Structures are given as C-alpha cells and as structure tokens.
C-alpha cells in the first residue's frame, strides 16, 4: 500500500524545526491521539475514529484544540481605520463585542488569508488568522498600518483556543460559565469565565453547528479542557481532531484557505464577494482590482459535487463535462452525513448553471459530469452548497 500523499497544500511546510506544541498537546498525547504536523504545529488529527468524532459533533458535541490559530491584536486610536485599509471588510462599523468574517487581499485582489475579526473595544481588535498564515498576516497588518496610530502584536503564544461545537454545546457550557449563553449571539464575543478562568467567549465556529470558541490563558487550558470533557461526557461530547474538523467544514460548505481560497483567487471566485465592502470610507488594499472583478463575468464558480460512486474526488482532481476538463476539485472527502463522497470544485460558469436549471437533472442523469479519479471518470452531480445545514 502506498499513500497518494494527499495533503493540505496550505499547511504542508518543510519541517525545518520541531513542530510547536500547544498548551494542550500533552493532553492529546495522554488521550492517545494521532498527532500530525499541521502548519508547523503538532496537532491532533484524530483521537479514535474521525467519523465517530464527526458524528458526535453533528448529534451531540465535540471539543477541539485550535490553539494553532493565530491571534493578532490590533490596538490604538486608529486600529479600526488601519483594519479598514488592510482588509476588505468594514471594521470601523463593527460594534464592540461583535465579530466579522473577512479577508486580507493583495493589491491584485488575490486572497492572502481569511480571518475572523473580533472587536473587543473601541480601540482594540482581535484578528484570528489561519496558523499557516499568521506570521505573514501579522507582517502585512504591520506594513499596512504604517503611519497610523495603531499597533499590531502577534499574541498567538498568549492564547489557548478551545472550541466546543455541536447541538449540546450550550447545555454543557452553560453551567460552567458566568455568561448567559442565551445572550451570546452568533458572531458575538464576551469577556467571561469558564471553569473559573477568565476567557473571551465567542459564538463562532467552523463546523456548521452551534458552537463556542474559548480564548483562554495558556495556563488555564488544561483545566478548561478537563472540566468541559467531564461535564460533556454525559451529553455525548468527545474530543475531536482536525480530520473531523475538515469533513465538518466541508459538509457545511465553508471554504478552507489553500483549497477554496488562495492568492490566485478573489473572494468573488469563492462566491464570497459579499465580504468586500466597497461602500466603506477610504481606500483599501485591493479595492481597484476587486471592483473590476466585481463587475466582470466570473471565470469560474465554486460548486458542490456529490460523487455517484464510492471513489472520492480529492483536491486537485479534474472535473469533466462530456469527458473534457471543466474545472478542478478544491476539497473532497467521504461525507459521514450524506454517506457519499462530496467535493467542492471550481468549474466554468456554464457548467455551474447545471446546478440550478430544471433541465439539468436530466442532463446530469446522463452522466455528463464526472470527476477524473486517478484516471477513471467517476460520475458526479452538482448540488447547491452547503451539503449540510443544521436543523433550525
């Protein structure tokens, strides 16, 4: 057996030094996790069966160590203005206590990272970046804030980040926090305590489920993890690794930097043009290129595919229409929820139309759409994203 070495391109860096450990790495080792070098961090890939972890998050709850994510603090009287110039979003319009999904782009409109920005106070913003990009984003923010009264500090080492995700998360977390969870809205954050420790508690996530992310001091991480694990056990909570996190976000149609997003793509390619706020005051990096892109006919469209055989479309495989290449798979995996292979792919707009037209079903039934899975065309169907939406 030899592995076809499918790796996440954004996260595969040459290992020049030993990977960094999070405040919870020792806990993962004690739990018998399979650890992997992910973007320079030693992270749990899975604890047991990643499919069971995935299903636990869909039906009960999962506990994730996300301490590899980059925490960048931008503070000062002009912190908001600096972010408005550096990012595509309108951050001065964000109220303290709220969060936004946004992106940092190059002058040509290419995506350099996708981010969540939490406004902690009038003059203080927490920018959460992908681990692989954290240092680069910190440098870009520093450059772009030059001349403004705003300071950028990489605070990644000062935070442990623990996520609890799934329909039972509020039941588990509620008794362990001083926050009134009913008041913590989606994409909001509050200073709170969890297990007696001071944290920033946010209702955000990357799984398609209700969930909380807990930014804690590193020295409190083990205690918070243990307390949540113990309290959650009766609710079906399990620790969940990066493998489950990836299939969860894929089912939820959420883009991953390095797969659906990257320097060769604009937010519009990924169907996320709405994050670009042209109506904000002042210039921002990438404005001209993105404005042009917003007006132009799209060159490609991000779509969902459901494989009709059991062979799984993977990152980089060609999408075929009548046997000719019409796009490329960006992410693919067997979906535990659908029980079939699913994938996101960039395809030509003409092919993407097949997802929405009435006549499309018949044409799709004819097997004209397929994915080249290592030399064999495996039929696939186009479906609207996301693949999974949690019950209301």
């Amino acid at each position, binding site marked *: *057996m*030899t*592995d*076809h*070495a*499918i790796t996440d391109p954004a996260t595969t860096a040459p290992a020049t030094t030993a990977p960094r450990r999070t405040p919870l790495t020792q806990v993962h080792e004690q739990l018998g996790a*399979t650890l992997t070098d992910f973007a320079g961090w030693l992270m749990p*890939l*899975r604890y047991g*069966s*990643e*499919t069971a972890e995935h299903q636990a998050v869909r039906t009960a709850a999962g506990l994730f160590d996300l301490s590899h994510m980059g925490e960048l603090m931008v503070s000062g009287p002009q912190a908001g203005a600096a972010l408005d110039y550096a990012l595509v979003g309108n951050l001065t319009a964000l109220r303290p206590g709220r969060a936004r999904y946004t992106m940092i782009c190059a002058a040509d409109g290419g995506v350099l990272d996708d981010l969540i920005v939490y406004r902690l106070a009038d003059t203080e913003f927490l920018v959460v970046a992908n681990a692989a990009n954290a240092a680069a984003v910190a440098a870009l923010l520093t450059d772009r804030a030059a001349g403004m009264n705003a300071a950028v500090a990489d605070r990644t080492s000062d935070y442990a980040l623990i996520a609890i995700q799934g329909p039972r998360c509020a039941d588990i977390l509620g008794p362990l926090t001083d926050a009134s969870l009913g008041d913590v809205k989606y994409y909001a954050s509050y200073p709170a305590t969890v297990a007696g420790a001071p944290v920033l508690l946010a209702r955000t996530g990357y799984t398609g489920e209700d969930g909380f992310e807990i930014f804690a001091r590193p020295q409190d991480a083990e205690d918070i993890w243990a307390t949540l694990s113990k309290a959650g056990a009766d609710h079906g909570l399990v620790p969940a690794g990066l*493998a489950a996190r*990836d*299939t969860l976000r894929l089912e939820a149609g959420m883009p991953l930097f390095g797969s659906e997003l990257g320097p060769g793509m604009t937010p519009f390619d990924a169907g996320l043009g709405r994050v670009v706020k042209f109506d904000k005051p002042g210039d921002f990096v990438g404005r001209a290129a993105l404005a042009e892109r917003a007006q132009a006919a799209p060159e490609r469209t991000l779509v969902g595919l459901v494989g009709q055989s*059991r*062979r*799984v479309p*993977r990152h980089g495989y060609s999408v075929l229409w009548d046997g000719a290449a019409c796009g490329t798979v960006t992410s693919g*995996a*067997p979906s535990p929820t659908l029980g079939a292979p699913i994938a996101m792919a960039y395809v030509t707009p003409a092919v993407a139309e097949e997802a929405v037209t009435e006549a499309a079903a018949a044409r799709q039934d004819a097997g004209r759409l397929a994915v080249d899975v*290592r030399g064999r065309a495996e039929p696939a169907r186009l479906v609207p994203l996301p693949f999974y939406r949690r019950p209301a």
Partner: protein
Amino acid sequence: MSVPEELHYTAEHEWVAISGSTASVGITDHAQRALGDVVFVSAPAPGAKVTAGEPCGEVESTKSVSDLYSPVDGEVTEVNAEIDDDPGLVNSDPYGAGWLFKISLAEGDGDGELPPGLLSADEYTALTAESGS
C-alpha cells in the same frame, strides 16, 4: 501496534497468510491506523491475475487514498464481500474479519518455499519503527 508473528508482510504495509497454495491478504494494523477510517476498498475481482509488487486495488479513507499491492503472484480466488458493506472491519479487525482477498499462488510458489520479497514480523516491525510511527 499489532504485528502477528505468524504472518508475512510487505514494505507497502500489506500482510499475507499463506496456507498451502492459498494466500490471504489484508492491510496491517499500522496501515489502518495511518489511514484512519476506511470508507471503501477496491480489491481485484476473482479471476484477476495479480503480480507481486504491482498495484491491484485501492483503499479509500477519510483523508487519503492508497494503492493496494499484491504481495505475491497468482490468481484472485475470493474477495471479502463483508468489506463492501462494512469497510470499518479493516480498522476494527485488520488481521481477521478485515481480510481483503485470497490468491491462488502461481506455479512453484505453493511448494513450501516462501515467495520472495516478503518480510517477517520482526522485519516489518523494524521497518515501521524506522519510519517513526
């Protein structure tokens, strides 16, 4: 990690059990751990001629797909039909219920001599220790 003494192994992480002129083939405990949850196995069909060291199928897991190699020369006589319904058997019982296919050994390989190139349990254990996992 389990490496039963009585089996033979390949550097590609298959195991083979030889009984008379029949070889049973599966993937090792080390392999299933590295792969994660197996979701689909494409094994060679009965009647297919297989050659030692040549790819003859594939194993799909959540994160990856791997080629399956035949450990020996011969003809496939039987495929484990249970795997199609429950690929998780490869994870839960890689040396037992998770066996993948059986081969009728080519002429000359069933004479008590081991087919060339196979590893003993000790050799395979050393191999996986070298790879650091």
